[in-house]
């Protein structure tokens, strides 16, 4: 079972991202679960959402304390809360930033296997294609590229089915940019 924890701030589409993640997995025939950290979220407040992906029925409803992957949609959270708490030593971390991971989270880069801690300028991509700072789709695409657990197309389809038309397509385009960005990194490329 893959357990993913997503961090962000209210208004950034964190909960939606978790849902889209579960939908992407569902579209590939997996069992998946997504749920927010239940609270009365307000714009700007730290928000956590969770997702699980498995090949059998997911029964548990406990929050994810030991994630296999952590997605951080807002870099400013890094100093505020311990977003990587309980992360699997073999796990992945994707951070929304234009700066390299080594600069943003040098300690984590050392702790996790090489190539498991990645940054992606998701907000930049979102502003390019959507025109609003909604980094959900590119972050998921980055996670897909990093882990290979699900495909870019599934992320794109999930957004397109949730937001039929322009918005979905723009999200899909953003996702594609992020996916290419990570694949490029993984292939040793330099996105700078």
């Amino acid at each position, binding site marked *: 079972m893959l357990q993913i924890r997503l961090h962000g701030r209210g208004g950034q589409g964190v909960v939606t991202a*978790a*849902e889209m993640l*579960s*939908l992407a997995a*569902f*579209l590939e025939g997996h*069992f*998946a*679960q*997504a*749920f*927010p950290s*239940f*609270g*009365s979220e307000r714009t700007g407040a730290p928000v956590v959402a969770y997702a699980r992906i498995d090949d059998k029925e*997911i*029964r*548990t*409803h*406990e*929050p994810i*304390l030991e994630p296999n992957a952590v997605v951080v949609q807002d870099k400013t959270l890094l100093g505020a809360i311990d977003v990587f708490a309980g992360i699997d030593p073999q796990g992945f971390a994707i951070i929304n930033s234009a700066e390299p991971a080594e600069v943003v989270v040098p300690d984590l880069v050392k702790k996790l296997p090489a190539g498991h801690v990645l940054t992606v300028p998701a907000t930049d991509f979102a502003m390019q294609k959507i025109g609003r700072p909604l980094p959900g789709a590119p972050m998921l695409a980055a996670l897909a590229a990093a882990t290979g657990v699900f495909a870019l197309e599934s992320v794109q389809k999930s957004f397109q089915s949730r937001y039929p038309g322009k918005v979905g397509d723009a999200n899909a385009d953003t996702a594609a940019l992020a996916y290419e960005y990570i694949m490029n990194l993984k292939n040793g490329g330099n996105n700078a």
Partner: protein
Amino acid sequence: MLKQIEGSLGIAEAVALCRPGAVCAYPISPQTHIVENLGKMVKTGKLQDCEFVNVESEFSAISVSIGASAGGVRAYTATASQGLLYMVEGVYNASGLGLPIVMTVASRAIGAPINIWNDHSDSLSQRDSGWLQLFCESNQDALDTHIMAFKIAEEVGLPVMVCMDGFVLTHAFERLDLPSQEQVDQFLPPYEPREFLDPKEPISMGGMVGPEAFTELRILQQRKMHKALPIIERVTKEYRELTGHHSGGLLDCYNCDNADVKLIIMGSTVGTAKDAVDELAKQGIKAGIISLKAFRPFPYEALRAAIGDTKNVVIVERHFSYGARGILYPEVERALRGTGAQIHTAVCGLGGRAILGSTIKDIVNYSLNNKFSSEMTWFDVDTKLINSYLKDTEGVTLPEGPLPEDVLMDTLQKVRA
């Protein structure tokens, strides 16, 4: 049809499949998404021959439902927590009138202090309201239970409260298998009210009944509840055969064969507990889970059969009765009287505190190691937090770990001394 959707949307879809005539909505977290979705379905025309009424309070939500049901259509509403309490007068009234309303309670704690997260204090407060109360362990279970609920309510002639954990289920995106409209139509026939307000056959509903017939009326209401037990079982069987979904029922056993300890749990904790006991099984610890679905009517016989000769029984509760102890305990004790089973209550998960797999494991171990010193024990207590208060105010502290009721009471002795 498989869908990856939010639990609330699943419930809305299920309710829509039942062709209600009236849906009443008043916002309160965490049930809101259900009625939002139903409102959209009515407005788009996806749900036909149904009116969606935005009322001004829960009291009116249940009241409009009462009116609609008395007027001869299927009526549905949803609420939680304070909302349920605000409608209580109508809740009792609906059952007294025998109106087969179906209502979702997205279980949530009751304030003060205000708390929007899940526990069972709201639904359990309606224990004696005369409604059937069916608890759901997953969104699939909840979805299916809603469809069954209409059929059960209409056959029994009493309203049904479908209790599903707020947020934990309502806000969870999961894979759900929705039956088709044809399947539901086959399962749930068009609504034929037992009695309703009809100018062709005028009746007076809700007259005043005095001491001369009140007892008898109540006995007949109790008889309906007794009737409901086999009806729930039969309807569940029919539904399972039709859809292949293993949902509903009076209760459901997991890993119960030869279990050394059995946990009786209601709601979404069951799923977490199943994973936990699977892990315990790998360590050779044999713990079973009894998912209690029907709280009212209470399935005494089914529970006794499910416990069998197991001696260690722990009830995991997300609420308790102030000044008393666990709410389920007296029912379970009654069911198991004479079996010699040791029955204890573990209280945890109040006001949204997550019940983790580890919590379940702790409870199992606590039981098997005979650590229950008291009928009721709190688990997952933040001892430091409570001591920080008690020490300052009364000069006493509580020990770390699970907190038995007798230890809590002992602190009073210490204060006095």
